[in-house]
């Protein structure tokens, strides 16, 4: 009987180990195909040249620049608002009714499908505010989309600072804001920074909202203002893989563009993971 139970345990645990292995395998296969497929076409010229002949030749420079502009907009809107909200939710409205309302709003905002954010951007920024199909419409849409992620990571970082730090500061006569600014935020900064990188990388990889807010299929130039049309890396992957004139002939370009996007997004994610690990080890409360 005992042997039977041990055998069952062995079998089941092997199965679980297999599940974990399967997931890692899926990751390796996915990355392997994109990297090996993309390296063939990847070159300095591919990164720095304008597309030619309806994207079938030349590079993807405008797409890279467009994605960087989008990241910049998200950085300058989503991060300050997100951090301010997080401070308010943790330090001012921790357990009040309003605090619960804010938490609920952020939770639900995080679950809204990205394409629905596209509809929001189309209705409000493109049409109602008259920004048209433009960089700023897409950037603002992505900013709203990444806001919940920014808020929840910043909130976690701020809430992790022990209350003794705050109490010590109050005991010395500091005001609430002095306490937050000089004693809470410095310790929460690495966590906030991690959340910031993750939010921006999320925005960089998002495609669906762009399709409703003004991404262009091919441009021979860079956007010259916030109200100009733009190219973006993730949309370029989609467009080249599904709608370009000769799908098979442009496959190397599709792979290479996917690889550039992957390197950009995963590079940021890895940086965030390393950063968090380093600082988590530094402060042990």
């Amino acid at each position, binding site marked *: 009987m005992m042997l039977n139970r041990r055998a069952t345990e062995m079998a089941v645990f092997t199965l679980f180990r297999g599940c974990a292995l399967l997931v890692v395998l899926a990751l390796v296969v996915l990355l392997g195909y994109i990297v090996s497929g993309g390296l063939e076409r990847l070159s300095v010229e591919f990164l720095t040249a304008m597309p030619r002949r309806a994207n079938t030749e030349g590079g993807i420079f405008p797409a890279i620049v467009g994605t960087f502009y989008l990241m910049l907009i998200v950085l300058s809107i989503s991060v300050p608002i997100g951090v301010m909200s997080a401070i308010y939710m943790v330090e001012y409205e921790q357990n009040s009714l309003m605090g619960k309302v804010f938490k609920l709003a952020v939770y639900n*905002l995080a679950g809204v499908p990205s394409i629905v954010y596209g509809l929001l951007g189309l209705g409000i920024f493109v049409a109602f505010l008259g920004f048209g199909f433009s960089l700023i419409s897409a950037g603002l849409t992505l900013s709203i989309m990444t806001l919940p992620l920014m808020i929840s990571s910043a909130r976690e970082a701020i809430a992790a600072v022990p209350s003794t730090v705050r109490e010590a500061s109050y005991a010395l006569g500091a005001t609430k804001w002095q306490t937050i600014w000089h004693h809470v935020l410095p310790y929460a900064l690495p966590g906030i920074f991690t959340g910031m990188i993750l939010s921006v990388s999320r925005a960089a990889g998002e495609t*669906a909202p762009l399709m409703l807010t003004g991404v262009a299929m091919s441009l021979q130039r860079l956007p010259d203002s916030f109200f100009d049309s733009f190219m973006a890396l993730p949309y370029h992957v989609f467009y080249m893989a599904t709608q370009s004139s000769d799908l098979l002939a442009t496959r190397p370009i599709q792979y290479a563009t996917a690889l550039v996007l992957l390197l950009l*997004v995963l590079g940021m994610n890895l940086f965030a993971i390393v950063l968090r690990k380093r600082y988590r080890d530094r402060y042990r409360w």
Partner: protein
Amino acid sequence: MRKNRHLPPREKAIQLALTVATWSSVLALAAVFGELLLGALPALSSISIIDFFTGTVWNPSHPIYPLYGILPLFVGTMMVSFGAALIAIPVGLGCSIWLAELAGPRVKAIFKPAIEILAGIPSVIFGFFALVILSEWIAVVFEPVTKLNALNGAIMLAVMMIPIMVTVAEDAMNAVPMSLREASLALGATRWETVRHVVIPASLSGVVAAVVLAFGRAVGETMTVLMATGNATALHFDILRSVQTMTAAIAIDFGEVEFGSEHYHVLFLVGLVLFVMTFLINFLADWVTRRFKEDY
């Protein structure tokens, strides 16, 4: 706000600024809902809501008799999402149990970042992989009716669901106190019996929430299904045939739709249905977590 009366003006100003920033989330959520309602409302004056929800044909670009039945899209979404859940639930649970109960700190230190990396991959990359590689494999193994089909999307979505599931479910299992496990082991149960009869029941609310949350993400996912499932709009229940999901319909049709036309407003209506669905799913996940949470 009596507690604010004696605050210096600087503190008051800062608090006001923070309050305004925080309200932006509530405002954003209200804006999403309001915008969808406003966009969808004109559609209701020209098409019947009953036809919309019970119509079995989605053919919005027909020049004379466009038909806006959401059922083919709804069935497409459900087929792909449930298919993905069927794959992701066992694998994801196995992973979570392994991670929470069996893995040593070293393997964990490799596996957890791997999960995070997987979660960070943009959906368009998954879509591209499904379109170019996975569909070829499926074509060889299952000999499907159409090369791009619901199964292709379901498998790819499953891979995307697993990181969400594992993160939430592992947290729930880690929250089960060691003393419960130790009591079970001391009574002579094996580690598997402990997992099955102690850890899983004790963390059930978190595990169920993980599944529901991941399902919600699958329903709302756009790019992967857009590229993987072929986007045929006929109503059927064959997982080896092409389907179009609600998200994909919105993404594709907006490329050709005329601004302010009937079709345009119907797409907002589809968006509204999608929003309400994901809202309810998220609500369910939250409710399960609160209602059945065991506090230790």
